[in-house]
């Protein structure tokens, strides 16, 4: 690595690796590196370094210890009740879904052999044959029907109840075929079935003190709030079985303690590391970072139904006044992608890449504010630690405003009760939205006229109609075109300013191979256990 520039860090390595995984060409990467001042010769070395990481050969064996950030007695082995990252990690290791999302966000078949529909309303699901549960039982349509029906039973307390409700009929056709009839056409069903809650459990399972799934690992130890240990399932149905002999997962809630445990070699994965501790990770050759941008964002919401957001000029002004680059670089320390005011991030395959983020243009903002007669009027922006980084973002906007004579104030309120007292209620406030796998879920949750969380009170009949139409469209091209147009509508017409999509940073030992970014979240969409290996 003699050609490496002196200030090159493992974070940059990870960023390049991230781009390669996304499919950036060598030319694009070199262009990016040149733009950041790296000489071409050095750039070549860096690229081969990162490419090597992507194309390494797996090693079999070994035990991995990974630490998440939260765990409690509410930890569960019941996929329907899964809430926290620890639950997702366990579910992914012990069970399988009908489909899973690959790194590009496309649904791939897992337990299903095919999922087909002619009208997006009646779906035929063919299952793989010869798949066995850990107790030796063979997977049949009964297991799938039982697993899906659990979400509709209020006594189960499923987290996916609202998504499962659209399944009007779940019928066993033969031993390996299930028919699902939806209440309304929804072409996203294969993607919805890839969510962690829709893991398949054996027919009739009510006891979840241990996990009887089809997954790559068998549950050996499960102590809620303490730890989980899984051992390799030698009878796994995929030809590329798990590489690890066993893995242990627990939580170290304190960020520093988690990073320290990684640095001292006691664990091999420290999930969701605070950007503040990255310097410690970067100074150490034995560890590296893995960055994934799944689409979590903190946004500035301007309600369009009350002053000052009633005047579109105020909204336009704010969109030009927000310095996205400053927010991405200094507030989020570079660990984010610049956003363009719509919720579908670049991790999603329906993301519209032609929709450029607005430029930071104080003069244009001033023009709009002047037109609205709001220059010098005191306008509070409600921010809170509950919406991550919102206080810092608000300060950036406030300062930019002060320079053109806007009197924006930062109204900082406590985290406790923020979501019930301020969010959706204050005229100008911040929100934070977790990643969702499909544009339809995002739009129906956040932007349709009936949306329960319509953050800016955006109402458009055209948008509502397009949403229903796109939901049922099986033609990918037509669907993509519609989603692109809807993203433009949201970016231009709604009052939600989305300055950046925030990245998740996992710190891992340099010996760890196979970890890739996934649109369902950090740690490879929580499914790392099956795919990673440890170099000897």
């Amino acid at each position, binding site marked *: 690595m003699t050609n490496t520039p002196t200030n090159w860090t493992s974070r940059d390595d990870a960023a390049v690796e991230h781009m390669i995984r996304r499919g950036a060409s060598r030319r694009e990467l070199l262009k990016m590196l040149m733009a950041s001042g790296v000489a071409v010769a050095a750039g070549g070395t860096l690229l081969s370094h990162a490419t090597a990481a992507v194309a390494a050969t797996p090693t079999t064996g070994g035990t991995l*210890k990974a*630490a998440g950030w939260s765990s*409690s*007695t*509410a*930890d*569960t082995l019941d996929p329907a*009740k899964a*809430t926290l990252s620890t639950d997702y990690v366990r579910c992914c290791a012990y069970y399988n879904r009908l489909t899973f999302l690959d790194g590009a966000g496309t649904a791939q078949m897992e337990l299903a052999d095919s999922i087909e529909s002619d009208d997006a309303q009646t779906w035929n699901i063919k299952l793989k044959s010869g798949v066995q549960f850990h107790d030796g039982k063979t997977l049949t349509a009964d297991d799938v029907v039982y697993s899906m029906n659990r979400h509709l*039973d*209020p*006594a*189960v*307390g*499923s*987290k*996916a*109840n*609202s998504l499962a409700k659209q399944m009007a009929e779940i019928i066993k056709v033969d031993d390996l075929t299930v028919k699902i009839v939806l209440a309304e056409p929804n072409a996203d069903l294969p993607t919805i079935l890839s969510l962690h809650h829709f893991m398949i459990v054996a027919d009739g399972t009510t006891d979840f*003190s241990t996990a009887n799934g089809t997954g790559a690992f068998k549950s050996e130890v499960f*102590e*809620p*709030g*303490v*730890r989980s240990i899984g051992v390799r399932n030698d009878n796994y149905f995929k030809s590329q079985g798990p590489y690890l002999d066993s893995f*242990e997962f*627990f*939580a*170290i*809630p*304190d960020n*520093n*303690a988690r990073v*320290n*445990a990684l*640095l*001292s*070699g*006691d*664990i091999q994965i420290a999930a969701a590391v605070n950007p503040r501790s990255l310097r410690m990770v970067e100074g150490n050759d034995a560890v590296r970072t893995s960055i994934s941008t799944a689409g979590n964002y903190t946004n500035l919401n301007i309600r369009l139904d009350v002053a000052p957001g009633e005047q579109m000029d105020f909204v336009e002004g704010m969109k030009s006044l927000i310095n996205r680059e400053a927010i991405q670089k200094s507030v989020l320390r570079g660990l984010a992608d610049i956003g363009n005011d719509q919720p579908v991030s670049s991790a999603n395959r329906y993301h519209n890449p032609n929709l450029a983020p607005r430029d930071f243009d104080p003069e244009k903002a001033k023009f709009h504010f002047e037109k609205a007669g709001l220059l010098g009027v005191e306008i509070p922006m409600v921010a809170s630690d509950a919406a991550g980084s919102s206080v810092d973002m608000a300060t950036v906007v406030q300062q930019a405003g002060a320079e053109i004579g806007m009197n924006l104030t930062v109204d900082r309120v406590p985290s406790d009760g923020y979501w019930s007292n301020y969010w959706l209620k204050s005229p100008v406030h911040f929100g934070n939205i977790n990643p969702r796998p499909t544009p339809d879920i995002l739009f129906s949750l956040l932007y349709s006229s009936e949306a329960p969380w319509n953050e800016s009170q955006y109402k458009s009949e055209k948008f509502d109609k397009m949403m229903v139409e796109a939901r049922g469209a099986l033609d990918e091209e037509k669907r993509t075109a519609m989603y692109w147009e809807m993203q433009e509508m949201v970016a231009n017409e709604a009052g939600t300013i989305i300055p950046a999509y925030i990245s998740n940073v996992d710190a891992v030992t340099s010996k760890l191979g196979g970890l890739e970014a996934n649109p369902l979240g950090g740690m490879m969409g929580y499914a790392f256990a099956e795919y990673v290996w440890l170099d000897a």
Partner: protein
Amino acid sequence: MTRSFLPYILVAQRLGIAFVTLIIVSFAVFFATAMLPGDVAEILLGQAATPEAVAGLREAMGLDEPALSRFVHWLLGLAQGDMGTSYVNNIEVAELIGGRLLNSLRLAAVVTLVSVPVALTLGICAAMWRGSIFDRLVSLLTIFVVSVPEFMVATLAVLVFAVWLGWLPALSYGVELDSWSAMLRAYAMPVISLSLVVSAQMIRMSRAAVIETINTPYVEMALLKGASLSRMVLRHALPNALGPIANAVALSLSYLVGGVIIVETIFNYPGVAKLMVDAVSTRDLPLIQSCAMIFCVSYLSLITLADLIAILSNPRLR
């Protein structure tokens, strides 16, 4: 005759008061929990908590019964030795607590073994040579240790011994405890961090208690009769200072069962303190109550033990 019964009557009184306190605390914890917003069904469902879903889950979990009757039911069960079942994961509370209480007690025992002899020796010696360089050094150090918060001690210890020097593991649980040296290594840092915190208090209290008795006329009398310094302190002053010292020790140690949440968090040690926090955040009533009872029992037994030592060691009560 009546005089020799006096200590036993006092002891019986102490035990009776302890029992009544336990019942009162149990009710206080129940009412405090009842005042917390949200219930276990709402918290389990989180963002998916639609009114129908909450109602359905409540019914399935038997939460539609009034809270007070569920509590009384639990209390009656406890009287028969049944701590109930956790609402959140349907595991017996006794099973959830069992292993973790053992962890907490083991840690507390090791810390006690390390810190009490050291603290008492330092405290009594400082009192014996009051005003000397040794005394001042001990006082200075204890004030220093008392003022540095334990999360700082713990984090620094991890950074130095685990990350930079690589001598000790950063986590205390989950490492292989196959040999004595491995166990010593795993327990070293939490024990040192906790010992620092609890012994500072004990050192200062025992020094103060011994000095107070040294200042009494009868100890001065012993000195005038020609007793050596050590005989004067150990034989004459210490028995009378034992009561306050035992109380100071008990107060410091009672902290070790329920109050070590920070050390449990930093060293990822699964004890009962973290369990209680989990229970409160999920509104898991049987678990909250059981944890509270355990903290209360451990606190009361330590304090009662200290009182017993004070009563039985007091020559005037013998």
